[in-house]
């Protein structure tokens, strides 16, 4: 059983399709990245998953069933547009939102205290939300999102507005959630975060799926026939290398269609060049993102 199964969903406002024929599944226990440029339809897709917006057509199943009052309690959702009651205390906020997920006050308080200690914010439990910094507020929002120990955690742009310290704290908490068997869907336009955390991903652009699969599959699909080399001395001309690009200490060698990386390595050794590093050049997710989004734009 998939944690999430989305099948051919469509959402249009007037004549404009915001999400168009999008399908994907998310395995239990994995981190799934939902990426795409601003306005691609990521948030609309997530809102349809959360039953906040109804799709015009298509089906969505969460933990094998259509989303209902009970299954809503198994999901933790951190929306992109987020906020809390400014006049409420931190602990009252945690308890109130936990109660809406079916957790009794005593349990919520106990879990809230543990999570506040984990985030080194226990001393702020009686402060009003308006007294906290923005970063602290976002950590409280993550605590509110996971206070009911959901099986599925949906995070829409979780790192936006966070400083490096809180970003790292949030990443650590996401990893802890994964290691405890939770399924995580993370939507962002920051490719480095997806590359660092996610197992599989889908990229949507202008409401349509443009990339889908594991990180390795996606990277392999967009891999150039090139190698990265760090060596002592000048490489000079090598047969089968059409272009050399310098990246700090490393040089990227772009190969012609007939030349393999193995052949290049042999030719370097034959020229008595000391090779300290030799690896296949794979494009970063950012490069793939720019390429795909750019192609779509054209």
């Amino acid at each position, binding site marked *: 059983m998939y944690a999430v199964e989305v099948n051919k969903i469509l959402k249009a406002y*007037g004549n404009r399709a915001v999400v168009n024929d999008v399908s994907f599944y998310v395995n239990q226990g994995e981190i799934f990245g939902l990426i795409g440029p601003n306005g691609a339809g990521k948030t609309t897709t997530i*809102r349809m998953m*959360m*039953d*906040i*917006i*109804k799709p015009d057509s298509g089906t969505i199943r969460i933990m094998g069933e259509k989303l209902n*009052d009970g299954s*809503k*309690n198994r*999901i933790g*959702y951190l*929306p992109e*547009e*987020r*906020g*809390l*009651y*400014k006049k409420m205390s931190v602990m009252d906020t945690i308890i*109130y*939102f936990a*109660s*809406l*997920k079916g957790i009794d006050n005593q349990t919520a308080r106990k879990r809230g205290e543990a999570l506040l200690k984990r985030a080194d914010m226990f001393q702020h439990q009686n402060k009003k939300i308006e007294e906290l910094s923005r970063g602290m507020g976002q950590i409280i*929002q993550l605590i*509110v999102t996971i206070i009911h120990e959901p099986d599925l955690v949906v995070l829409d742009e979780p790192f936006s507005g966070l400083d490096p310290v809180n970003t790292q704290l949030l990443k650590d908490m996401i990893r802890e959630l994964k290691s405890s068997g939770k399924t995580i869907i993370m939507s962002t336009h920051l490719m480095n975060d997806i590359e660092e955390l996610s197992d599989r991903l889908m990229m949507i652009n202008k409401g349509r799926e443009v990339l889908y699969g594991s990180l390795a599959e996606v990277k392999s699909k967009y891999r150039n026939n090139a190698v990265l080399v760090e060596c002592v001395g000048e490489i000079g001309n090598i047969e089968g290398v059409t272009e050399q690009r310098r990246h700090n200490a490393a040089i990227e060698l772009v190969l012609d269609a007939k030349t393999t990386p193995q052949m290049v390595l042999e030719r370097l050794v034959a020229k008595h060049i000391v090779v300290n590093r030799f690896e296949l050049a794979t494009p970063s997710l950012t490069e793939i993102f720019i390429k795909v989004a750019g192609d779509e734009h054209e």
Partner: protein
Amino acid sequence: MNKTMLLIRHEFLTVVRRKAFIILTLAFPVVALLGILAAQVIPKMITPTVTIEKIGYVDNTGMFSGSVTEDQLQLVPYNSEDTAKTALVNKDITDYFVIPSNYLATGLVQRYTLKNEITPSSATQTVIRDFLLNNLLKGNDAAVVNRAKSPLNIASTTLNSTGAVAARQGGFAALILPYIFSILLMLAIFTSSGYLLQGLVEEKENRVMEILLSSVSPRQLLAGKVIGLGAAGLVQIVVWLISTNFIMKIASSSFGNVIGSLQVPPDFLILGIVYFILGYLLMAVLMAAVGSVSPTAREGQQMSAFFIIPVIIPIYFMGLIMEHPENIAVKILTFIPFTAPLTVIVRLGLSEIPIWELGLSILILILTIWGCFVLATKLFRTYLLMYGKRPDLKAIIQSFRES
């Protein structure tokens, strides 16, 4: 506890803990009590030391004589206008009057005073009138003289169409009670629905809405808000009703029969609460719709005026409703959902409203509330997460069609 109940409790507690709510709820009974207290204490504080003021008179008819003392005023006879005038200038007397020789024909009495006043004080007028009556009716029985001084006390009884004594007996109570209640009802409805609008727009501005909607449905959220804040408004109304009865008891012991006659009839009380609930529900769902499409609290308040004005229309027709509660225009106001609550409350104090009229009025209100609730839920779902811009009327109509 189910989610709707949790939302109701949250909304209720959030509002009743607000300082503004507590102050407004307690303001009415506290101000009324202070008013009663002031009415009892202040006259005692400002009561001057008892000094008898003298008023002189000059009789040119030969019919009037004697000296009367009444309400610290003493009438003193003078032989001529000159001596009276000298006494006035010397401040031996505060004023004097002359009864001319043709008094019986004209009834005219000429008064002179050093005071700059609009009219003579009631005490002065009473003592002069009693003096004249005592002399004019000299020789009659004292009871006849007293009755002549106060010849009329009307006691009216209103009968219904069958000739039996009607439940509504009119009078001061019938006039003032609906007036006070309509103001309180209007205040409670606007306060509660205002909190709903404010809360909704605040949640939109604070971006709490989407987190709530990941746990509850738009319908649960709307129902929780409407019922929770309505309960807070009901608490306010009940506090006012209970304190009104309590204050009336204190007032009747202090001011006698006029205020004492202000008793709240049970059917008035029940229908008052029924129309508060219905009036509030109508305004609440409309405010929810306004809150859904308003990007800021300021815009929400501006848009809400569009619905508030029809509700207060009966205030402008208060005279018509009070004088002609059976008028056709008044009946029409009874059936229009926006104007029904205030119109019915005012009519109830003055006449008995036929059961069919009340039934039809309540039915129309309930159907309107349901229709508005359905539309508000659709707007709620469509526009609650739209931040920063307000949809135009065309877009709203289109979203109704699409949903």
